């Protein structure tokens, strides 16, 4: 039915939706159900943390995923437990008023900074400007005063698509600018886009326990990025049994076999997609027959492509050759064998010319 009264933009979240959202976050965080009341209490009574949300080089996909979650309660819950002071997509203010709000929050209140999008470094950072200031300047102004930084999406975490080789604007993630950030703790929630549950879980964890969740060595929260996709994949049994899709649309594909041979990057990607899934209808790429593209990993545009092959291609700079590792390997092996053959032939030739005298050393 059409949403004639525009319920999805109604900022009020009902109690049922509120409890449901907290329960989902608790499950994602791996907390026992005894902790749910504490989560609910923290979300309901704590002073709503102020959040400044900065957009740099990005597609707004992360924000869209958050706001247009098919289950509207999730977006409303997030907007209910945080006080969004500055967010270019959803804020009512515009122009000077918006910039004033931003500075007001930064100067006078504790806040959490959420960054969406990469920050370009090349040519003084002129490739991303908002209100006449470069992304680097804005980050330097806002980040040191934040109590924590959440880099949402692969762009803010690791640079994303605009950092793909040859990276014309020198794009990089927030954590690549320690000189601008100044010691503020950074938490990365990569993904293209990331699951809103990972963001919600991080915020609720912060509200409930007054500290950030445990992180892995790439600053990703372990509750969401602690396990490989491959280890929780519903098609893992087919992998173990050696039942593979050979090409899209074949019989094995229709039977739902493992997508390893058509380039699924599940074995090298850390995320909770198979467990938490997307869109409240229990889907994620592999469940609908497409391999994982590894979007939560650094430089995935360079290292996970070609998306339908297992390994990246080898580039030989001077010769301009771009080919698969195995085809380069076979050629070098052929050259080695040829060199060995030539060496042997020279030896035999010399022996024929000089006779056998060389044996008497």
């Amino acid at each position, binding site marked *: 039915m059409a949403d004639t009264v525009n319920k999805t933009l109604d900022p009020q979240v009902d109690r049922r939706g509120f409890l449901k959202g907290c329960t989902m976050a608790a499950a994602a965080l791996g907390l026992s159900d005894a902790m749910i009341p504490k989560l609910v209490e923290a979300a309901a009574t704590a002073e709503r943390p102020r959040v400044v949300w900065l957009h740099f080089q990005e597609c707004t996909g992360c924000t869209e995923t958050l706001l247009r979650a098919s289950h509207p309660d999730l977006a409303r819950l997030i907007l209910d437990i945080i006080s969004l002071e500055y967010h270019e997509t959803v804020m009512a203010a515009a122009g000077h008023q918006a910039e004033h709000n931003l500075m007001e929050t930064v100067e006078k209140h504790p806040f959490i900074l959420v960054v969406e999008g990469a920050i370009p470094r090349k040519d003084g950072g002129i490739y991303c400007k908002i209100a006449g200031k470069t992304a680097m300047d804005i980050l330097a102004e806002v980040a040191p005063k934040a109590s924590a930084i959440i880099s949402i999406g692969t762009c803010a975490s690791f640079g994303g698509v605009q950092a793909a080789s040859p990276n014309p604007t020198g794009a990089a993630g927030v954590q690549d600018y320690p000189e601008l950030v100044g010691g503020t703790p950074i938490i990365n929630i990569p993904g293209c886009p990331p699951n809103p549950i990972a963001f919600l879980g991080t915020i609720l964890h912060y509200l409930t326990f007054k500290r950030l969740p445990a992180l892995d060595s790439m600053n990703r929260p372990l509750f969401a990025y602690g396990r490989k996709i491959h280890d929780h994949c519903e098609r893992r049994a087919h992998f173990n049994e*050696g*039942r*593979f899709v*050979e090409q899209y649309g074949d019989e094995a594909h229709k039977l739902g076999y493992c997508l390893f041979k058509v380039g699924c990057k599940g074995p090298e*990607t850390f995320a909770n997609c198979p467990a938490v899934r997307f869109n409240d209808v229990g889907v994620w790429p592999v469940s609908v027959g497409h391999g994982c593209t590894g979007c939560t990993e650094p430089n995935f545009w360079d290292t996970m492509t070609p998306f339908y092959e297992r390994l990246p291609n080898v580039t030989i700079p001077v010769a301009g050759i771009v080919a698969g590792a195995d085809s380069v390997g076979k050629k070098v092996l052929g050259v*080695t064998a040829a060199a060995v053959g030539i060496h042997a032939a020279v*030896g035999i030739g010399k022996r024929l010319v000089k006779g056998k005298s060389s044996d008497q050393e």
Partner: protein
Amino acid sequence: MATYEKHHCWSLLLRLFHWMFVLSIISLVTTGFYINNPWTNTMIEGGTTSLAMTYMRYIHFIAAYTFASAVAIRLFLYIFGNKQERILDILPVTGRNIKNLYRILLHYSYISDSHDDRLGHNILAGGSYLITYFAALFMILSGFYMLYPEVSFWQVWGVKLLGSQQWARFLHHCVMWWFLFFVVIHFYFLIWNDAKHPEGLISSMFTGVKFKQKA
């Protein structure tokens, strides 16, 4: 007619290392190619309980531990082995070794026929083995990083040295090719040397004994 005398060259431990290394590399490369691009498909071949990938991975991991143990033995022998096995015998840092490197280069390019009279590896051979052990250490580190990606020790070092899992996988695969190049060159120069200088080079890896002409 030249007369030869026996010289003990390689200890039992070194020969054990060598054959552990050979067998584990054969298993690792074979199963590694399967794991990268499985050439069987039990859906097509009709198997129902073959667990093909599971067994390939199982063999790969057993061979990997054998490989790591073999490399550990070799590194031990570099320090505590007999005279021919120690690292100073193959590094071009002493006058004797630099002279050998020079002579062996001339010898291998058919410019000179003079053969250095030494019991252990020549410097070129020893150097190529040293590069291979570095490649082996890389394979061990990247392999453990992929086997235990969630163990913090391997994760911290793996991320620092190699980056993401995918990058580790890629480099693990590329460095594997070195071992195949090495096998071709190793076999060729073994046969070449054995044909030119009858000192029992090939059998020495079974018996530990080389033969030298009596002066």
